[in-house]
């Protein structure tokens, strides 16, 4: 018997985040049709294992930087669920008082420093987080989470070079879901080799099954340990799949840009059930425990949604406030 990669505490933490992300995203998908969340919303249903594992592998004081598809890492890093849903509803209790909606979530109190609606935008910003940590002699790690298309932007290259040059405590996590909106990676990139590009930057690169939360967690833990101990950056490519449409709550395989079989295959590799099977078979958690965790989350999510719906909008006079920091 091979040694168990995770223990019960880790299993519980991973499962909690995994299910939290899934349940919240599904709740949003359901509520979105009411047209009260009036902002572009990019769900990560199907991809939850990546943010859940990444968030679990980090300390609260580590930094993370993400994209417009950011609910997953926001929740996994410990951001307030109520404040996130309130933000989607454009309410004053939202993380940014309704000023940035789903695409630019933040939770600075738990190290989620920023997200961007510009593809690739936060990759170099995350490197800056690593630079700050290193300059101050802290053992903090800074993580950039981004999609496959973000690696086509010049800043990806610039950020990789600088992080490696200065041996910064950075982990680059690419969520490769093979698509940029409706365009397959093969129409955008010269090779399907994202993790191998690390070599060009004298950096370790690793590819993992992004629907296997344990695999992502292990790769992430190793990368974080290396970074924390002064060993410099790592690039992790986690291969996964987005279930719903690029932006919005619907299913869109009928558009014909990807095949039903492909989607079906990926859904058979569904990360939540797969992890449930793993932890129960490994007797890390019982089916009962899983049910309890999920029920608590469902309840919490429903409560947060009600809170968000019922909380007040910001006052009109806030339009011109907060442009500049005092």
């Amino acid at each position, binding site marked *: 018997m091979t040694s168990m990669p995770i223990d019960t505490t880790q299993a519980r933490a991973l499962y909690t985040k995994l299910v939290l992300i899934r349940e919240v995203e599904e709740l949003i998908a359901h509520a979105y049709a009411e047209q009260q969340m009036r902002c572009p919303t990019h769900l990560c249903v199907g991809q939850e294992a990546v943010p859940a594992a990444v968030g679990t592998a980090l300390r609260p004081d580590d930094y993370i930087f993400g994209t417009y598809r950011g609910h997953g890492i926001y929740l996994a890093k410990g951001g307030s669920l109520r404040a996130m849903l309130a933000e989607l509803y454009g309410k004053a209790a939202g993380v940014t008082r309704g000023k940035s909606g789903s695409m630019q979530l933040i939770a600075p109190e738990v190290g989620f420093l920023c997200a961007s609606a510009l593809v690739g935008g936060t990759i170099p910003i995350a490197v800056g987080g690593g630079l700050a940590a290193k300059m101050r002699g802290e053992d903090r790690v800074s993580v950039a989470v981004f999609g496959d298309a973000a690696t086509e932007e010049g800043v990806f290259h610039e950020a990789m070079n600088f992080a490696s040059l200065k041996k910064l405590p950075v982990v680059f996590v690419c969520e490769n879901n093979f698509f940029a909106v*409706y365009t397959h990676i093969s129409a955008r990139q010269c090779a399907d080799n994202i993790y191998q590009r690390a070599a060009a930057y004298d950096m370790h690169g690793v590819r993992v099954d992004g629907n296997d939360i344990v695999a992502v967690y292990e790769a992430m833990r190793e990368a974080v340990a290396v970074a924390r101990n002064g060993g410099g950056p790592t690039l992790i490519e986690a291969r996964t799949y987005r279930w719903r449409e690029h932006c919005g709550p619907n299913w869109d395989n009928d558009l014909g840009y990807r095949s039903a079989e492909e989607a079906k295959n990926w859904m058979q590799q569904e990360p939540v059930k797969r992890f449930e099977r793993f932890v129960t078979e490994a007797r890390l958690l019982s089916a009962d425990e899983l049910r309890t965790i999920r029920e608590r989350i469902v309840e919490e999510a429903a409560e947060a949604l009600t809170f968000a719906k019922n909380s007040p909008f*910001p006052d009109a006079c806030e*339009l011109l406030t907060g442009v500049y920091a005092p």
Partner: protein
Amino acid sequence: MSRLLTYAQALNEAVSLTMEVDPAVFIIGEGVDDPKGIFGSTSGLKEKFGDRASDMPLSENGMTGVIIGAALAGMRPVMTHQRIDFTLLALDQIVNHAAKRCYTSGGRQGVPITIRCIIGRGWGQGSQHSQSLHSFFAHIPGLKVVMPTTPYDAKGLLIASIEDNNPVVFIEHRWLYNINGQVPEGLYRVPIGEAKMVREGSDLTIAAVSYMTLEALRAADMLAEAGVSVEVVDVRTLRPLDDKPIINSARKTGRLLVADTGWKAAGFSAEIVARVVEELHGLLKCAPRRIALPDCPTPTTPALANNYYPRSVDLVAAVCDMLGMKPDRPFAQATTAVPLDLPDKLFTGPF
């Protein structure tokens, strides 16, 4: 033969027709050949023209360099950006390279590229997806900048842009995509560099940019009921700017209001005000005024975005104020009922 087409269809037809007649024309951009076809404006081109209508990697600066090089080598590329915000990644190529090439070649090289960019608003697009950055381009010698309002102008100006031997930044407002208008079949050009008087009036001139032309026309309708006669000039081309129709109109009416889709400070609306007052000293009956975006990024929540975008009622209020009138209450009520993060159904045309 003229038909009723949407703005999106007019754009599509312009590209399709130029591609038919000139094998040097091609179109490239993120999503050009995908199921949505840039909100319909590129749908069907892939089927008709194969690789000449193609998607591209997310590499805005590099790909702009690519079309500049293709242009120098004799092609006539069209690029699309679903949001003008993405062009900020490509300003080195657009401003440092494309805009300078003709001059720095001693007039020997043209760079016949057209860069289509969509500006927009609504549904919580927020700070990074709804900027209206036309003043950047209008500032740069070597670029041409057009912002058509009607389907007719969209087609005619896009054809003229593609046929132009210079880099043209072609800016489309997303809320115009569904408006209708009479559009002739076949190739025709609307000359770059001509403003257009779209409504005659005698009391006040509104010079409007892009979508704000529709808000201005609506304001003019509302004001007409109150006995105020407003002249509306659609700027259409920002560079080279055709200031004569605006100056002439302001000379006639004695009052100038500029309605812009962008920010005010150091923005395009300031240029219009400056040109007019430089020409018409002592001839205006009141101070010129600018209606533009408030000086802050775009908020996402409708609670704040509702007050972000100026609309016809704001123009009406400004006009009344400039004329020393008290605006009637009904004006305000007329539009505030419409949800402001979705395109206004009243604005479908035909124009």
